[in-house]
């Protein structure tokens, strides 16, 4: 399992293929991937950029815990979670969850579950930069 909070832009597809190289070929039969990217609109307003903040030391531990739970519960072969902090622009990836398993159900279920837990529990906050002014995002959209 790999968990990382990134301060720089990343290419999720490159991250997945690069991470897969340390896995034994033929050992997995399913890979489920979720990539969350930044929209340029929210609640009827154009959003130019977003600042993502986290609680260093707490957030990493939360992601480790929920990742380990998903691996155990769904018998995953491996799991990769990346999350951006700092300034992001429209279309930049924010979060990547990739789950590897023998069969599809486990990786589908686990990637969804990890994402929902991450959104409801992990200590990240977003501040949107609008054309005029800025505002903190107060709640996440329902899954």
């Amino acid at each position: 399992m790999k968990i990382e909070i990134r301060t720089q832009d990343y290419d999720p597809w490159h991250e997945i293929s690069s991470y897969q190289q340390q896995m034994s070929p033929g050992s997995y039969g399913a890979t489920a991937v979720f990539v969350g990217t930044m929209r340029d609109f929210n609640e009827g307003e154009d959003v130019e950029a977003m600042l993502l903040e986290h609680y260093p030391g707490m957030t990493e531990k939360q992601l480790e815990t929920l990742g380990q739970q998903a691996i155990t519960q769904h018998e995953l072969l491996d799991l990769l979670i990346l999350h951006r902090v700092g300034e992001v622009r429209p279309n930049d990836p924010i979060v990547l969850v990739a789950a590897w398993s023998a069969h599809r159900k486990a990786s589908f279920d686990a990637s969804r579950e990890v994402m929902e837990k991450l959104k409801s529990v992990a200590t990240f906050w977003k501040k949107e930069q609008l054309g005029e002014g800025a505002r903190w995002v107060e709640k996440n959209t329902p899954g």
Partner: protein
Amino acid sequence: MHITVKYFASLREQMGREGDILDIEEPIQMTDVWQRVSNNKPLENLLCSRNRQYAQWDELTEDGDEIAFFPPVTGG
């Protein structure tokens, strides 16, 4: 006993500072910590953690604790 208090996101901006250090004589509840640092502001739409784990509002502090207050999370 000394406890460190941290604020995040919109709350940090409202408080106008990143945190506080409190010197208290005996264990107090998280609600009491909030009242001291905020001058009795109402406890609205806030979460708290103690030593980097979510905490209950009636949980008691211990010497050396790192307490944090923050708004609901919005990651992902």
